[in-house]
Structure formats: C-alpha cells, structure tokens
C-alpha cells in the first residue's frame, strides 16, 4: 500500500552488509530505548513520587481539654499531615474522640475496618455502627457484629498545654 520503493535485497549489498545491518539495527533499538527511558524517567518519577513519599507525622490540635465532657464520644475534625494549600475540603479528616480521664483521651478512626466507610457513634446504643454493610463495634472499638475483620483503629492522642492533639500520618485503612 505504501508507495515507497524497496531496494531489492542484496543489491548494492556488500558481503559484510549482514553484520553491518545487525549492528545498525541493534544500535538504533538500543538508542531508541535509551531515548525513551531518558524522556520517561522524570515524568514517571513526578507521577509516582506521592506513592513513594514517606508520610509525614504531624500533631493536630482538635480542641481544649475543657471542651470535652468525661465519658462523652464526639466527632472531631483535624488537618491531615502534609497538606497542600489547594487541598480544600480534602485537607481535613475526622475521628471519634472520647475523654476517658482527667487528661486521658481515646481517638477512634472514622474508617470501618471492613471497607473504610465512616462509622458513626450511637450514644443510645453505646455502639459504633457502619452504614455500608452493617459493621458494629462496641464502645472500645472491638468488633461486635457484622463483617469487620479487625477492631477500629485508633490515633495516638497527646495533650500540649490545654490542647488535645491527634497524631496524623496516613489514612487508617489496611
């Protein structure tokens, strides 16, 4: 279909043309692969860098100690670690925070260990319940029923001055 005339094989061909052709073909393929690698490496690195970046750890304030009543479980929201100025709503995540002592807190992950859906604390029932597939956890986060394979994850909590802080590193799934 292409109108390019082909030189008949062997015409003008010296005896050495076989090895010369092989050499030139190898050279072209090798150079081509090298060129492709040079062009591809920086962009691929840029795309994959977030995957390999070591997550940063950041302590995020969620409120003053006095704001939390003893024994109560409330939802708090805080900033992820390593946020960018244009993250918008995605900069924030949440946790269920319970004050269990004068200066003692537990922070449960929002994410159900089954498929990551957000669990809600049901104060009347004293249970965490997941809306997706009916996973249920007791007040300690232990699995009480349904499909979750593991207890609810917890965040580390510390107190700095009169501020309660939660350790934010990565999304607590898997």
């Amino acid at each position: 279909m292409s109108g390019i005339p082909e030189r008949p094989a062997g015409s003008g061909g010296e005896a050495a043309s076989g090895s010369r052709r092989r050499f030139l073909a190898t050279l072209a393929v090798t150079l081509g692969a090298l060129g492709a690698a040079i062009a591809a490496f920086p962009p691929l690195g840029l795309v994959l860098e977030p995957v390999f970046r070591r997550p940063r750890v950041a302590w995020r304030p969620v409120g003053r100690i006095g704001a939390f009543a003893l024994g109560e479980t409330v939802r708090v929201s805080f900033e992820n670690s390593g946020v960018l100025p244009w993250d918008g709503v995605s900069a924030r995540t949440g946790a269920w925070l319970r004050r269990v002592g004068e200066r003692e807190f537990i922070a449960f992950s929002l994410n159900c260990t089954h498929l990551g859906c957000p669990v809600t604390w049901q104060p009347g029932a004293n249970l965490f319940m997941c809306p997706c597939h009916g996973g249920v956890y007791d007040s300690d986060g232990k699995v009480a029923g349904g499909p979750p394979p593991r207890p609810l994850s917890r965040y580390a909590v510390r107190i700095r001055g009169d501020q309660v802080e939660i350790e934010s590193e990565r999304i607590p799934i898997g």
Partner: protein
Amino acid sequence: MKLLLAIWKWFDERSGIGAIVVPLASHLVPSGSRWWYVFGSATLFAFLVQVVTGIALATIYVPSTAHAYASLRYLSEVAPLGAWVRGMHYFGASAMIVFVGAHMTRVFLMASYKYPREVNWLSGVGLLALTLGMGFTGQLLRWDQNAVWSTVVGASQAARMPLLGPWLVRVVLSGATIGDATLSHFFVLHVFVLPLLIAGLVGLHLHLVLRNGISEPPSAGRPVDPASYRASYDAMLAREGVPFWPHAAWRDVTFGVLVVAGIAVLGLLIGAPALDRPPDPSLAQATPRPDWYLLWYFAVLALLPHAAEDYVMVLAPLLVGLLLLSPPFLSNRGERSMRRRPWAPLLVLFALTCIGVLWRAGARERWMPDFAALPLTTESVGERSGQLPAGAAVFNTKGCLYCHAVSGRGGTRGPDLTDVGRRLSRDQIVVRILNGGPNMPAYANNLAPQQLDTLVVFLESRSRP
C-alpha cells in the same frame, strides 16, 4: 461541487488517502451479517459521544479538590446546556457498558472468538476492563461526599492485598491520605491515560476486524479448522460476500444514530445522577455506593461470608479477568453454532441471572442499617403505659430499630420482629439479645437488667393479629 472535487483530487494525489479508505469501505463482508452485528459499532458511537461531551465538560470542570464540587454544581445548575451535556456523558457511559456487554455476549454465543479471531476477543476484554475503569474513575471525579468515600472504599479493597496492601493504598490515593493529588491523578487517568489506551485498543480491534473479516453467521456442521479456515472464508466471500459500504454499514449507522439520539434524549429528560452533599472526608454522614453498572459487585462485597472476604476481594477480580480471557485458549476450533454448543447460552443465562440477582440485591441494599428509621409509636406498640411502651423505648434508643422492623417501622438488616413473639420463646429472645449473632452485637454488657426485662416483654407481645 466541481471545486470540491478538484480540491479532493489535489489532496488525494499527494496524500494517497483514497487508496487507503476505498478498499476499507468496499471490502467484502458475509451477506448474512444482520442486526446481531451492530453492537460493536454502537459501542464505538457511544465512545465518540463520550469524547465530544467529555471535552466540553473539561472546559468547565476544575480538577482540584478545593473547586471540583463547586465547578460541577455550576455545570449542573447554571451553565447553559451544562446539565444536558453531563446527562449525555452519563448515559453515554451507560450505553458503552450495555453495548460492550451485548457485543461480547453475541460474540460468545456465535463463538466468533475462534480462529483466527482470538486476538479480537482478547483486545475486546481489554476494552471492557478499560470501560469499567472509565466508569469508576468518572464517578470519582464528581468529588461529592459519595465519591470521596467511594475512593476510600476502593483503597480499602486494595489494602486487603497481602504484602502489597499498604503500598497499593498509597497508589490508589496517590499519597498517604486523601488530598488534591488523589483527585488530579484520577482526572489524568480518566481524561488522558485510559482514553489513549482505549483509542489504541480500538485501533487494534478494528484492524483485526478488517484483517480477519467479520465472522460469518455460524451454522451447525461447519466447524472451524485453523488449517483451512482462511481459504474457505475467502471462498465464501467471493461467492456470496457484499461490500461493507453500504450493504452492511447502513445497519451500523442506523443503529448507531439511534443510540446517539437515545443518549441525547435520556441526557436531556433524565440527566446525570444528582450530586451528593458537598465532600467532607471528616464528616461521618456518608453511604458510598457505586453507579448502577457496579451495583452487583457492591452486593457481592456485602453478602460474602466474612471469612472469604480477603480471598474474594483480591482473587475474584483476577479470576473474573482470567475467565473472560480464557475462551479462545480453551477452544479455538470446532463447532461455532449454538446448537452444537448448548452450554454457551446456558452459561450466558447463568451469568446474567447471577448479575441480575446481585444487581437487585445491590439496588435494595437490605444489609444497610437504617439510621433514619422512625421510632416506634404508641400506635404500633399498642399500649400507652406500662412495660410495653418502656420496652419499645429501649428498642428505639438501643439501636435495635436500625436493623429490625416492627409493624413496618425500622431497618431491614436483621429479621422483621413484628411477630417474633410467635416464633421465639422468652428464653430464645433473651439468649439472642444477650449473645448477639454473627451480624448482631451482644447486648449482655449494654443493657441494664430492667431494660432487658421490659424489652423482652415488649418483644414477647409482638404477634401478628
């Protein structure tokens, strides 16, 4: 007209386009190829609608987590024709999935995947996977509450992979947490990478259709033999073939235009799914669910025996992929007619039934606790004072109501308890409440003795009149 012809001649003499296109248009196809053969081109027509509407949507949509939702709201509510174009994009996607399925079913039933069309089939399976990938990434680009949490659900499935799990989570989210990179990477996949791969595979697929010819309608007693198939196919074409253009193409065009018109009408009248509430990864009010074409898999994940989950989430997609790729390797010769392959229609029927049943289950979502269930009323309880209303109050506040219905109020996750007093004895009711069950929490440490007593009295009194 004369001028146009002169321009074309000038261009064609220099480009040789005519020499490429004319043989493509006039190549012979089997004369018996009728309406069964239009589903592949219908998928292509729908894909072209996606390209055009997608480009238009991208002129307004902002792929940033800070602005995506607002730009989509603007697109759906303010921009002239915006809602229509979004609706077309949604129904174009739906049409692609429907016709990929129809095309694949037709090819399987007629065993068109046999020699020499094995690679046609394999590239088609690749296109199916890419189409589903476009559907999933497209749903996430809405970046409403549903989309944000669907991303988390997707990442949680990846997390089940042994060894690679934590790393795969970071691949899905493009980082350790949900952030702007998550959305922009999905945007790049949806708008650049997957469409390019689709275009490439469609090119290969079409090239193979031309190279190997459209499979002739099968007839029993004419098995495929790789040694002689091409010669007998060519002889058949020479005997009874007709030029593709226009003898076969008119059907493709007619059906394709109907599909495009259908997409436009549905997009205008029904439109794209309404946006969920604004995204907020810190807000626990969310019930992520996939669009209709993945609802059946949503049901699989909900209804699985819990012990099998790790295996199914990791292995099932792999296994389904291998299963779809296998037909040309299992049998690329022999009979093509359904009459000699009675298991083929049965298999299709079985697959469609499975998907249909799961799809229905997915649409009803009976496994979801109903947090919005209305509390039991005096009317449904039957008495105004005494132990019954007290027991009903326990039923309301302790969360029983989210999963169990009484007289039409409450969830469907657990058994309906309207007539539990007839089915279970007092002891059975007590044992179940205290110990729970596979899907029910044990209430032994969660109820005061008095609460338990009134709750049991209430449940015992439940018997349908």
